[in-house]
């Protein structure tokens, strides 16, 4: 079954520094870090204490609320440090990688003969469960609640993000094994979306419902696709998996090894030669960033993830658990004389208020991290709707979240959104409001109060 999804509302942010389709091996990272904050809402309980030797795939910690949910080490080596912050909160597990990698053996499985419960137990014990996230709330899936469907978006529209079609090429066997296994976890279907014009290896898989998506960002966001295919109602749960994580799940099933290897795009205008690297989850970003060289080293922001939704990791930080893009852009810590009223040619704007990006729809921009204005109350109306394809009132939902109005949040469609869906409204926001943070806090409140 194939269905076309066409998105009209949105905005493609075209930036300088797209990764060239050429993959090289990254310099080997010495220390890998796993940050519990990457797993939103999870309180870690330490399993591998400082000084313990672990193999790749062996657990570092489990969730406080579910001790079957294990979080694995991406490499074999020694846990050299557990970094703690205020109130002894664990910030990161640091693992000094062995030269010769050793993998925990979880056994080769025949996916076709596995039952749903076996798949679930296998994914939990091997540490692959955290790859499965759920909607509502955009957190790691609760293994006890069966989803009505599983969604995988193989269409990349976020600015400078790693192109799914490219990084998944040649991984058909792993992808097939993973979707076959996942299809046993739901009574519904595994919905896979691919770009209409692309050439995705996902398109040839069996046991899936395939959808062809076209349109500007956020067409690649899975929420947009869910809303078009099978919208989430109150009380329903769907699961979401990133395609690059399917490869890891698939390899686990086919070989019995947890191989955290990932093809990562290094992109952004500060990178001299943007391209793809093979590296592992938790690797030091410096192992790829400096191989390629950067412009103006003292003035860069290194982001694990894409420029709209990623985390600011600093040049000595590590690749996040769910990320397959490292973006490096210039910091914008500078003043601009009469920057608020002079004509603007070098920044993107949805308006034409002496901003001229509408004249050059195909121009690529070199944006920095300047907010281009100060934080204000919500004033302008009607602009968010032009980049927000969901059938939801974005301004009203943001306001409901800001005042913690649970009833309004529920009625206005909070179950259907994730923070990333508000990245574009945040980008164009004239009042420079932190939309993604408002939505994240709203979702957290709902999870706590309604569950």
């Amino acid at each position, binding site marked *: 079954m194939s269905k076309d999804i066409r998105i009209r509302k949105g905005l493609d942010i075209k930036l300088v520094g797209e990764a060239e389709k050429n993959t090289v091996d990254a310099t080997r990272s010495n220390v890998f870090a796993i940050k519990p904050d990457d797993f939103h809402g999870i309180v870690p309980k330490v399993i591998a204490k400082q000084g313990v030797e672990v193999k790749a795939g062996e657990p570092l910690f489990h969730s406080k609320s579910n001790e079957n949910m294990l979080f694995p080490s991406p490499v074999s080596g020694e846990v050299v440090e557990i970094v703690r912050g205020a109130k002894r909160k664990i910030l990161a597990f640091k693992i000094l990688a062995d030269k010769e990698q050793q993998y925990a053996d979880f056994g080769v499985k025949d996916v076709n003969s596995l039952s749903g419960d076996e798949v679930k137990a296998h994914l939990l014990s091997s540490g692959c469960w955290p790859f499965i996230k759920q909607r509502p709330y955009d957190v790691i899936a609760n293994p006890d609640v069966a989803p009505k469907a599983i969604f995988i978006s193989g269409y990349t529209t976020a600015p400078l993000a790693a192109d799914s079609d490219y990084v998944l090429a040649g991984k058909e066997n792993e992808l097939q094994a993973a979707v076959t296994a996942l299809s046993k976890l739901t009574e519904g279907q595994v919905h896979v979306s691919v770009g209409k014009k692309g050439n995705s290896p996902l398109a040839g898989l069996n046991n899936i419902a395939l959808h062809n998506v076209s349109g500007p960002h956020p067409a690649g966001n899975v929420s947009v696709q869910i809303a078009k295919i099978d919208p989430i109602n109150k009380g329903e749960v769907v699961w979401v998996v990133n395609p690059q994580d399917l490869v890891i799940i698939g390899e686990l099933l086919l070989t019995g090894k947890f191989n955290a290897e990932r093809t990562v795009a290094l992109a952004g205008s500060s990178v001299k030669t943007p391209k793809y690297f093979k590296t592992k989850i938790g690797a030091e970003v410096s192992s790829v960033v400096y191989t390629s060289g950067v412009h103006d080293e003292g003035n860069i922001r290194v982001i694990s993830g894409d420029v709209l939704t990623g985390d600011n990791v600093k040049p000595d930080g590590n690749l996040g658990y769910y990320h397959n893009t490292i973006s490096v852009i210039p910091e914008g810590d500078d003043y601009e004389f009469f920057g608020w009223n002079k004509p603007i040619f070098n920044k993107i704007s949805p308006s*034409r208020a002496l901003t001229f990006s509408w004249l050059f729809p195909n121009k690529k921009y070199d944006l920095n991290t300047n907010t281009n204005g100060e934080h204000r109350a919500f004033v302008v109306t*009607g602009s968010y709707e032009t980049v927000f394809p969901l059938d939801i009132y974005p301004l009203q939902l943001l306001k409901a979240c800001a005042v913690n109005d649970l009833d309004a949040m529920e009625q206005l469609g909070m179950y259907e959104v994730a923070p990333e869906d508000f990245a574009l409204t945040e980008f164009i926001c004239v009042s420079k409001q932190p939309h993604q943070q408002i939505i994240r806090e709203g979702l957290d409140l709902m999870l706590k109060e309604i569950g």
Partner: protein
Amino acid sequence: MGLKDKLHKLKLKYKGKKMAPAFNAIHTFLYLPNETTHSGAHVRGADDLKRTMNTVIMALVPCLLFGIFNAGYQYYSAINGFPQEFSLFEHFINWENFVLGASKIIPLVVVSYGVGLAVEFLFAVKKGHEVEEGYLVTGMLVPLIVPVDTPLWMLSVAVIFGVVIGKEVFGGTGMNILNPALTIRAFLFFSYPGWMSGDKVWVHSAVEKSGVDALSGETVLGYLANSKPFDYSVSDMFFGFIPGSVGETSAFLILLGGLFLIYSKIGSWRIMLSAVLGTLAMGLIFNGVVEAGWITDSSKFYALMNLEFWKHLIVGGIAFGIVFMATDPVTASQTNKGKWIYGFLIGFISILIRVFNPAYPEGVFLAILLMNVFAPTIDHYVVQGNVKKRMKRLKLKTA
């Protein structure tokens, strides 16, 4: 050390101090701040609130300039009689008109901005938030919607009232229910009706002169409301060579400003278009009433009802209200569907008030204030439509 570095040092010095908002307001006026993103998207679009407001001001500047020349033109024409063969550069855009107009109107602008911004700064410093840009537009609108001879003390009192009661008590820009500029206008109108309406106030010095030297300062609507004849042509009315509030007379320049706002995507075309439709609809209804013979020319409403429906758009302040007042995003409906209803009713009710209120033949500011109050209600029902759709989907699922 350049100005940029000096100001940066001062900013650090003022940080956390009481006067910081006041300093920042001036600093950010000169320089786009060096603020970088902390959460969420790492890059941001080019527009901020200052740029948005500045665009509206740019759209208003032609109306202000026209108002300056028109103040002089109306005054000298009232004394010397209207020129037989009107020539734009000979009779309108000339030095005398400019000097007279500027001497009356520039003080209005200065007082409006001076007093309003002073109140804004005071509240920002007192409450410790940044000075918000809302008043940049309000301060420009106010001088354009008052009669040319409005005393400056009166304007000051009204501006203080409008900014404090109309905006700051609700929490400042973005939180207000009523359009601050119209709150100021309404305050002036109800407090000092003698200065704000009648047949004298619309031309400079017409109030003081009586007896032999008497000047007529009647607006077109005034003539119509009193069923008196007047000799302004349609092109006079369209281009704005008529008496009226400072900036409201030229429908042509307002139209250009409106098109600029729509083109720059700052003003809502939905509100403007639907308000024009509402105006035409009410005008047509009244024309129909006259045509059906339900009302005769002995009625005091006859002249206004009989005005061709489209002429309503080029007399009085309705064009100005539709383009610059109704589209204020804070006090208008916030949903796209709601904007259609909101705009239409503004046009519709404006003409209703205009025709049926003999004391004061311009209704647009009352209509907009009324709809400001109803805008949240309109939005509520529009949003409920979306909520109901979601509920229906759920019911279908569980049924």
